[in-house]
């Protein structure tokens, strides 16, 4: 595009074709022209801004490995959080708490989301109900996460009379639901209609078509949605602050999982220890962040890798 015509013969040939006084020089891309300079300048500006936009990502990752990685030890994974001047300690109970609450949230939101998505994509895609449900799901997906906590506080904590892992799970499930539902709907829609028609043509009922044909075919993409939802829920702090609260003890007592008590989570541990003046707790806070970010990123990337392998229609 920016090749300069230099041979005098070519130039004359072209100038002969140009009307009136126009010179070939006006058609060349010249660095002396302000409009060309402006274009180059703006391209450079956009490049610089993009590089700057990625600086925080690398800065966060660098800090996590620099401050969190240097002090991370295996005992962190099975010890309880330390008291202010205590050495050692870990985030074992928070890790278990996060897994348990994300598990509870997944058990609520995944079946709920997939069943509703089956309706949206297959059973009544153009019905008025579907339009309203889709709108509600979109409203939920833009819902501030702290309000999910406020809701769970009103609906579960006040009802059951105390902070609990249940309340935390319910709050997280509100945030997971729209992600699961909307991605599952999209996934079921992406199943080639030939397969659906073939199944119905063979005499299968709608239910058989959904369960035997549509869901298995759409499964990789549905899993992507589920994984993304899990990654989001695992990193959420705001809905857990006043639903699951925090605890310095294990969620499993006497080999029994007790979901009716305040429960620790990685995110709340990081929040609680980020503002304290005690060096050991701050160190632990960075190590916990590293573990949390790695967990979230691994689940996120694993989820995305599922849908990459989905066969194209």
């Amino acid at each position: 595009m920016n090749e300069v015509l230099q041979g005098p013969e070519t130039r004359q040939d072209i100038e002969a074709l140009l009307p009136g006084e126009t010179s070939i020089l006006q058609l060349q891309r010249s660095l002396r022209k302000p409009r060309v300079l402006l274009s180059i300048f703006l391209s450079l500006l956009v490049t610089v801004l993009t590089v700057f936009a990625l600086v925080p990502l690398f800065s966060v990752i660098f800090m996590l490995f620099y401050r969190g990685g240097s002090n991370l030890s295996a005992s962190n994974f099975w010890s309880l959080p330390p008291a202010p001047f205590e050495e050692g300690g870990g985030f074992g109970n928070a890790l278990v708490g996060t897994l348990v609450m994300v598990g509870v949230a997944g058990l609520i939101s995944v079946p709920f989301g997939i069943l509703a998505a089956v309706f949206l994509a297959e059973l009544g895609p153009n019905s008025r109900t579907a339009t309203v449900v889709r709108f509600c799901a979109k409203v939920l997906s833009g819902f501030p996460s702290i309000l999910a906590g406020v809701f769970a506080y009103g609906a579960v904590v006040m009802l059951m009379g105390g902070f609990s892992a249940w309340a935390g799970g319910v709050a997280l499930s509100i945030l997971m639901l729209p992600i699961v539902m909307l991605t599952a709907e999209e996934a079921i829609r992406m199943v080639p209609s030939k397969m659906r028609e073939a199944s119905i043509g063979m005499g299968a009922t709608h239910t058989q078509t959904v369960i035997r044909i549509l869901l298995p075919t759409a499964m990789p993409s549905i899993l992507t949605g589920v994984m993304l939802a899990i990654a989001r829920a695992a990193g959420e702090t705001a809905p857990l602050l006043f639903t699951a609260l925090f605890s310095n003890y294990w969620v499993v007592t006497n080999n029994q999982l007790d979901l009716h008590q305040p429960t620790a989570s990685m995110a709340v541990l990081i929040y609680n220890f980020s503002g304290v003046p005690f060096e050991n707790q701050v160190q632990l806070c960075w190590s916990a962040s590293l573990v949390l970010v790695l967990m979230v990123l691994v689940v996120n990337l694993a989820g995305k890798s599922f849908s990459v392998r989905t066969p194209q229609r």
Partner: protein
Amino acid sequence: MDTNAPQEIARPPSPFQRFSDRTFRTVSFLFAWLTIVVVFYIVWEIGSNSAPAMQRQGLGFLSGTTWDPNTGEYGILPEIWGTLYSSLLALLIGTVFGVSVAIFLNESYLGGVVYNGLKLVGLHLHPVLGKLPAACETLLKNLVELLAAIPSVVYGLWGIFVVIPMIRGGCNWLHEHMGWFPPFSTPLSGPGMLPASLVLAVMILPTIAAISRDALATVPPKLREASYGLGATRWETLLAVILPTAAGGIFGAVVLAFGRALGETMALAMLIGNANRISVSLFSPGNTLASLLANNFAEAGGDENKVAVLMYAGLVLMAITLIVNMFGALILQRATSGLKGLN
């Protein structure tokens, strides 16, 4: 059992199959409806719990500036101000960077540079290296998406230990030399509006970049080619043709990002300083609705009055974000439907 017999293949569904089909359809329909019920239940739960506070405080709650649990005097004007101020500031920064990233991705600058680099060494048609430009583009896109994957509490931690120490010197220099200018009128002692907004900008950048990029990508290639054909440079085309055509989508992205910024809690609760004051200074601490809830709810415990007041504040936050989000979704719908005729 009898499936080998040909006449048995073409049988109508058995009663059990018909029953299970109907059950499954009903269950799926009910769960779809349950979504609607959940949304209304959330609104009702927060609304009904805040009713006592609404009766007691009335609309004065929105314009009051004191927050004193001892006297029972509550007002959230400083929080509303802080929410809007920090979000708008973050939006300003996030939009500049986000739209730049969207343009950078959509114009395939990185791919172009890598391709030209390979061409210089004559490897641009190499079976493996030839795929490098596309791979770099994908990598860049994924890196921008990773920004959104990092939990907000980690951004908050990063803000405390990296952003605040980094900007403190510059901010205090600005305050000393340009203190007459209202946004620089107080020194930055630690947490404050600017660090909070900077971190918030990083968090909404991926949203703006992703949706703006979609908007840019839906601009019909015909328009770009026509502009190039008339002799316009790349940026003349961008500024005169592509950005105006995609403006609706980009604006929608900005509004949706605004909705996200309003509801974002943790990074702000950790960085804004939680001071109940209204100030235009960028370096003064403030408070937002979401961080007010985050800081006070756990301790409200048995105090029903305080819970009701906090629920009321939650209701206000919900109203603001719902309006902003619906507005954004509407704009995006308009913007994408308007381009359909052009393709």
